[in-house]
């Protein structure tokens, strides 16, 4: 820790400090569904790029289960919304990296309104 502290003070005493900023999430996808969804693609990356998911949020006025799928419609996340927990969000401090050209699709358990927001970037 001592070494680290010294290093930091050297950095800040330099004439030209290194300034870094975290890579921004420049893609925000918002979709609303009202009918039953089965493996509906919601995010298709540009050719030969990967999705990096940094946050997602779902909300619904009536209880339902939202399932997010990756390649071959394999579920990777299941979110159960209830009347008490009608909005659910999670942010990923470490971006979730999908494979090249892998799309994210959605499946819902019943027909009903559901809003979904995905944040991230493609590289």
């Amino acid at each position: 820790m001592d070494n680290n502290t010294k290093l930091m003070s050297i950095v800040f005493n330099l004439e030209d400090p290194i300034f870094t900023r975290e890579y921004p999430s420049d893609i925000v996808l918002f979709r609303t569904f009202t009918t039953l969804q089965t493996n509906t693609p919601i995010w298709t990356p540009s050719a030969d790029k990967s999705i990096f998911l940094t946050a997602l949020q779902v909300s619904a006025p009536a209880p339902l289960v939202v399932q997010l799928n990756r390649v071959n419609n394999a579920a990777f996340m299941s979110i159960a919304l209830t009347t008490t927990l009608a909005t659910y969000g999670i942010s990923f401090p470490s971006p979730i990296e999908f494979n090249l050209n892998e799309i994210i699709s959605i499946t819902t358990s019943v027909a009903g309104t559901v809003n979904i927001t995905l944040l991230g970037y493609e590289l």
Partner: protein
Amino acid sequence: MKHNIQANNNVPAANQQILLTIKESSNIINHYSLGIQPSKIILWTPGPQKSIYLTSVQVSAPLAASILLSDNDINFLSLRVTQPFSTVSQAFPSAFKLTTGNSLMLSTSDEEISCNTSGALTATQVDYNGRSDFTNVNNAIGLSNGTLASLNSGLLSQTRGRIVLQYSMLPTQYKYLEIEQVIIKYYCSLNLTLAVGVSSMILYWRPNTQVDWIKLQEISLSIIGSVNYLTNPIEYDITDMVLGASDPWDVINNLQTSFVGTHTGLGLGNTVQLDAIEIKICMAGKNQITVFGYEI
């Protein structure tokens, strides 16, 4: 802090390029659908000489359960899912590093078991050896309530019949539920006031309409007296047969029960009665678990 401000002020003045940094991404996404796990099971084993860096975990479940995560044998995180709050997650801004070579393991505890008891939706009578003599057949639908379908002995001819009951009991979230127990309850009685011939009731079920009836029990009387299961039903546990099917929920969706009554003796005064055939299904949640991270 003073130095820091000064240094930052220099950045725009120096017209410096700001460097973009990208955090170590989580390229491993593991999803599991698991029921009750009383002992630790391995979720994720890292490559040789590598460590798991866990960045996020998420659980959703239809019923309450506690999910315990451990670094090999050492527990480090418990996520409690309850019915109104059925999705929980935890993200680690600083990745949680498991011991090198150790696996991420999981066990569950305090699982909620939910039981539903269903009566039949429809009751129909079909011929049993050419006759269908039950009366008030519709009284056999629904839960046991004291209204009875009856088969009375006849003065001139032997009487018999078969009541077939059909159900609608697939839970809407069945994909996320695991069957723990299935019990059939027959609320029925046999009463003889006349000792002529043999009077019987035979209990059946089948997983779908394409297969033969499976006989569970036959109860017969030939002397004056009665056997009464109208309050305390005859129960059969068919859990093993349901779970032995390739798709247990398909069995729950299509199963039928049937009840046969017969009087071989001629003369009035003997009856077979059926109040209801109930199906009790007990379920635990199938917990949906996702872990995100990487290996170094």
